[in-house]
């Protein structure tokens, strides 16, 4: 047998391949998916299926056009992961074409155009999300009321979900309502306490649904941490910054601001912290950088939620920090062994 000539090292950690990483992340979304389905109906699951199909098709087409091996790149499951994340983020009742638009945009323009996996400066799922959010704001801000609020088992039925997704006109009926964040944003001069008392979307039933969803994602995120697929830096910094900002403003003006608890348990807080902001490709590199990056997202989420035009802010906050990531990277190089100080910036010439 001819002997191989290969550079060292000659062994590799068994099992933990890129596809495994992607599959693990997908697996970690299962608790969230289950809770979402239980509380908001089959829509999420159907969304995900549509999204995955759309992602695979658009990825395959682009790979073909770029003359790359389709099988090889589809097998890294990165497109599937993007689709799953998008499917989870979109409201359960959005029409199917909206999902397809979001996903194909994410795959084609946010990922492949930049050279495919590993080269995209922005989180593809969030690019897709932001695009449809800006283009179709109405269906995007209508979330199904959770089952115990809307109080009919109807919304949970498969038929209802199918109808909502495949009907020709977006369904805005009695079953849908604004998310708590949206509702809070549009409380129109009501004091916080009044809003919580009177607005349907802010009723304790709806809020606890969102609490369960967030806790499910937290559980998935902890699993990712346990398997060392992500490090703690980004989520902790993100949630910490969000909590600090919320507490600060709650202390200043308790009557108009929401509690930190509200911020951390509604909307996409946990989902964003553990699944979106930790996307390795578009985030910062070093541990120190990840702390800055997470903080930045946390602060931006709070700012956009409080003063911005859109109810939830994870997508925009993440995209904004994606912009800043290379810059943060330059200034957050770790101190290498044998160096007194960490190197800063990209000043060429002081390397020697």
């Amino acid at each position, binding site marked *: 047998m*001819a*002997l*191989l*000539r*290969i*550079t060292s090292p000659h062994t590799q950690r068994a099992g933990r391949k890129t596809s495994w990483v992607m599959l693990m992340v997908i697996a970690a979304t299962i608790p969230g998916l289950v809770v979402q389905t239980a509380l908001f109906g089959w829509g999420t699951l159907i969304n995900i299926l549509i999204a995955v199909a759309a992602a695979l098709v658009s990825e395959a087409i682009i790979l073909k056009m770029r*003359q*790359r*091996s*389709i*099988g*090889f790149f589809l*097998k890294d499951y990165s497109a599937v992961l993007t689709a799953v994340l998008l499917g989870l983020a979109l409201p359960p009742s959005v029409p199917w074409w909206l999902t397809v638009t979001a996903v194909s945009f994410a795959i084609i323009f946010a990922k492949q155009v930049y050279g495919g996996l590993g080269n995209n400066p922005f989180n593809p799922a969030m690019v897709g999300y932001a695009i449809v959010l800006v283009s179709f704001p109405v269906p995007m801000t209508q979330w199904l009321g959770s089952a115990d609020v809307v109080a009919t088992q109807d919304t949970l039925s498969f038929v209802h979900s199918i109808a909502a997704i495949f009907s020709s006109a977006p369904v805005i009926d009695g079953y849908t309502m604004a998310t708590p964040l949206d509702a809070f944003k549009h409380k129109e001069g009501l004091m916080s306490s009044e809003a919580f008392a009177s607005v349907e979307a802010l009723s304790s039933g709806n809020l606890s649904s969102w609490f369960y969803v967030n806790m499910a994602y937290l559980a998935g995120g902890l699993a990712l941490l346990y398997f060392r697929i992500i490090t703690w830096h980004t989520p902790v910094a993100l949630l910490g910054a969000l909590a600090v900002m919320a507490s600060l403003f709650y202390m200043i003006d308790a009557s108009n601001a929401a509690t930190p608890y509200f911020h951390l348990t509604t909307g996409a807080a946990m989902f964003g912290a553990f699944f979106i902001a930790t996307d390795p490709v578009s985030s910062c590199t070093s541990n120190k950088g990840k702390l800055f990056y997470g903080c930045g997202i946390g602060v931006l989420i709070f700012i956009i939620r409080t003063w911005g035009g859109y109810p939830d802010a994870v997508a925009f906050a993440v995209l904004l920090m994606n912009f800043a990531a290379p810059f943060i990277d330059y200034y957050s190089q770790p101190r290498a062994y044998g160096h007194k100080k960490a190197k800063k910036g990209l000043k060429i010439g002081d390397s020697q």
Partner: protein
Amino acid sequence: MTTILIAVGILLVLSLIFGAILGFANVRFHVEGDPIVAQIDAILPQTQCGQCGHPGCRPYAEAIANGEAINHCPPGGQATIQALADLLDVEAIPLDGDHGEETAKRVAVIREDECIGCTKCIQACPVDAILGAAKQMHTVIADECTGCDLCIDPCPVDCIDMVEIGVTTKTWSWDKPVGPMSRPGNLIASDRQPLMEASH
């Protein structure tokens, strides 16, 4: 109307202020760079072979500074073109084949028993890499030879060879990996095909 005027006025003032700041920064943080010709010259390989059509590297550097194409230097090859492109902020173009092809690094070697000692090669060598005296055998100092070929033609008895500098264990290095889709193995780089469509 007044609002427009005020807006225009404010913009004007702002631009003046920023202009002043930028101007100040330019003066204050000015970096004294080498003149461009020297920088170009530093990139060129200093083989002095004249294949670019100029009598030496510096004249070509001057010509580049005056707008000549950056792809006329075969000894420097693509690496030099890339470096020039980076320096001058232009696109890196492939080497112009009219001026010769990029070859492996070579040195001149005189077949000493055939040398008639005419000293013609000494006069041709731009870096004084040849030793010898009239009617004596000549030899090339390999360390000084830039491999420019200029001594080949003048030799009346064709006794100078250009010999490729082979790879030794001291100069050998790993190739750059081929990149995604390739599997490192004992294949030499050229017959290593990326696993295209055929993969699985």
